[in-house]
């Protein structure tokens, strides 16, 4: 049937057409924004961590009894952890844990000028085994000398040397080599000399939030006393099951004056990074599915009604020689035109909602043309499927039956 005819038919049943268009538009608005948000969340999820997420453990413990000798506790703990089967090595972790900053993020500067911009980075104070626990690969310079490692309580002076990731080196010094340069940590601008550069991994929580996931630095320091913490990073063999978490906890548990807060794979800390956003994306996805179902039901209902009103027309068509397929096809074409109008309207609404969400709720969302095309095709498919059922009924009308009266 010619498009002109279909348009005429649509105009004849204006209100039904309008309702279908409106439903499509609102559904498109909801679905496309869900897709934008989910896509942005997925992009975060898909940032490669370059880490062996199931081979590194974060261990957080708190020493609450002030009379405990922390230094000997740390030594005993590391011994105990390394005695657990399939543990490769353990290091004290003085500042951040992997993807778990335990406080505000750290800043690093390339000089002491007040107006210099800083970079956010993951800041790790580790012992002799630290570099291997994290599996860092040297690109330039050297590892720490044994003499550079310092141990002590909060009053201990900083080691003054640092290994940084290649990404941090680039963000601070551009194409110049960072080796031998001095970098300044935190607002107090504590100077550290760069002795080595390693391949960047996703280590710092604050850095990742600041879209600089691979910025990090390691200092050869075992400094304790910071809010009673005694934390460790542990490397385990490949393919170790969750049971190792319990075994490590048990190894540390029987110490008086200290509690084990958490033993977890880095993978879990990484999951936590995006929890808020992924929950929003999941809920929106749920609402989208409901929107699609509701719209599909609506189209079924409205097309059923419109078909039942036009039973006679379809009978006439059949009597004039139209095949069943042709009758169905004309209904699908009719619906496609409505879907198209609804899509145009819906995309307009989507963009409005997108700006509303960006301005009023701090959500991450990206408008991408291929996503819109995907939503368009999906919406058309759902609506066509919905039309198919009543259309099949309509096509069943036998030619002779309808024409007999009046």
């Amino acid at each position, binding site marked *: 049937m010619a498009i002109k005819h279909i348009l005429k038919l649509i105009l004849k049943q204006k209100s*039904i057409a309008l*309702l279908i268009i*409106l*439903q499509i538009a*609102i559904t498109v608005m*909801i679905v496309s924004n869900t897709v934008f948000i989910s896509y942005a969340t997925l992009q975060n999820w898909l940032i490669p961590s370059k880490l062996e997420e199931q081979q590194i453990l974060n261990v957080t413990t*708190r020493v*609450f*009894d*002030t*009379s405990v000798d922390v230094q000997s506790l740390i030594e005993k703990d590391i011994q105990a952890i390394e005695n657990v089967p399939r543990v490769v090595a353990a290091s004290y972790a003085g500042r951040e844990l992997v993807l778990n900053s335990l406080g505000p993020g750290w800043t690093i500067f390339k000089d002491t000028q007040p107006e210099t911009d800083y970079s956010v980075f993951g800041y790790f104070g580790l012992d002799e085994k630290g570099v291997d626990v994290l599996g860092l690969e040297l690109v330039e310079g050297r590892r720490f000398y044994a003499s550079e490692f310092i141990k002590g309580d909060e009053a201990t002076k900083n080691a003054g040397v640092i290994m940084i990731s290649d990404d941090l080196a680039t963000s601070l010094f551009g194409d110049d080599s960072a080796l031998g340069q001095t970098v300044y940590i935190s*607002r*107090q601008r504590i100077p550290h000399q760069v002795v080595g550069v390693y391949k960047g991994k996703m280590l710092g929580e604050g850095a990742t939030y600041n879209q600089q996931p691979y910025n990090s630095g390691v200092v050869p320091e075992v400094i304790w006393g910071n*809010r*009673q913490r005694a934390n460790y990073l542990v490397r385990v063999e490949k393919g170790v099951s969750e049971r190792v978490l319990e075994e490590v906890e048990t190894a540390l548990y029987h110490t*008086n004056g200290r*509690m084990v*807060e958490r033993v977890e794979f880095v993978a*879990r800390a990484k*999951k*936590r990074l995006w*929890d*808020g956003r992924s*929950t*929003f994306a*999941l*809920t929106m996805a*749920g*609402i989208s599915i*409901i*929107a699609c*179902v*509701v*719209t599909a*039901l*609506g189209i*079924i*209902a*409205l097309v*059923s*009604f419109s078909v*039942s*009103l036009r039973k006679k027309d379809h009978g006439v068509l059949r009597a004039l020689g139209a095949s069943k397929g042709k009758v169905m096809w004309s209904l699908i074409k009719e619906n496609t035109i409505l879907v198209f109008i609804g899509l145009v309207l819906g995309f307009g609404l989507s963009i409005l909602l997108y700006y509303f*969400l960006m301005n*009023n*709720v701090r*959500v991450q969302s990206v408008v991408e043309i291929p996503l819109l095309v995907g939503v368009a095709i999906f919406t058309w498919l759902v609506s066509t499927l919905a039309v198919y059922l009543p259309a099949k009924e309509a096509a069943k009308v036998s030619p002779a*039956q309808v024409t*007999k*009266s*009046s």
Partner: protein
Amino acid sequence: MKELILLAWQGLKQKPKLSALMVINLAVGITLMLTMSAIVKQSSSEVIGHKGDYLYTAGLNFFDSDQDVVDFNQFPRWTYQDAEALKQADLPYEHLSFNYTTEFIVGLADNSVRPISVEASGTDRDMFSVLDAPFIHGASWSEQSQQSGEAVAVISKNANDHLFGGANSVGQFIQVQGEQIQVVGVVDLSNYKRRFQDLSFSNNYNHDAFIPLNYAYAQNFPRTGQVSCRTDDLYTATNPRSGNIDMLKSAECGYLTVWFQYQKDMGAAHLAELKTWLNNYIANQQAVGRFQHNNLTDFYSMGELYILIQRFLAWEAIYLTFSYFLFGICLVNTVGILLAKFQANRKLISLYRALGANRGVIMKIHFLEILMLTVASVALGFVLAFAGLELMFHLRMYQADYMAFAEQVRQIYQFDGELALLTTIGIFLAVGISGLYPIYRSSRVSPAAELRG
């Protein structure tokens, strides 16, 4: 009437697919709307909500004039010296209470249970009145213990369950940082959906211990809530979170949250007196160079705070808006389904008319039919909404990475009788109204006209 119901039942069975379609369609819309509106309603209601217009908190801004301080969230907390000045002032109120949030590890001296890390509140006796705290054992500490900063504590039911297996622990001792603290009371705050006392509005955890401020100072328990100083340098120098307490007491670093509870009906008048006093106090202090900002004070009643925190609920508000949208669409669909259904029933209607049923009877039959379908939809909707709330609860726990007190979080994912009733009435009205046109249309079928073919 019985006949009409029977006829309506017949009508239902006439087009079972369309009937099922209508029930599913409405139930989906109802589920989403009930789930989201329950969450939003529960999130923005509070156990002590009735104190909305006579419980106040106030902000006093000592920041430099170039700091951005537009609304209450950005206001610094009270400094020690300002809080002391306020306590000395002769002002009318029922309760004046200060608190700061801290964190420590609680165990027992005999190491018989595993120690737990708790968030606690350094506060005064008045806090329990402000909170209307339901004591299950014991009571608040005495005025004298408060003054002398004795080692006493009120602990939460949660902590009591963990440490003492739920037994009456009044008189027993807990151990914090090597010190013995005597338990004087146990409160059950699990009905409190949010921790409003330190303005964190956290739904994950409430305070698990309350200790007298003077004791907290003596032990220098760290200040882990919101803390800010007049300048960054001062912050670095004072280290207000865990630094020297005497230095903090004289520094311009704020960490205390204040509450004023007034007598009912006297709120406005007494608040005006507070404002006058504060203006005088500020004027005096300005003489010595403090308070240079152009936005110095702010006051919020409990009711206003709950309007303010709607802002944190932006996501929930979006879900709710969408759920209303979708319910609207479901109603439109209902009209479509009913039209299709009654259109298909024209022959039957025509027959009834021919047999003597007038338009009123036809309308009644159809109205009953819609009523039956709506009852079924609402029932299904409620069942699904329970599942929906459960799902949202688990999603929320997932979001908190299971680091939240489930019992407290669950408070938000619950039905509320009033809401359920109002929504049900609303649904019946909405469906009734949207059914009017199809009912009217179907009653226009002329007798016998449809019987020809």
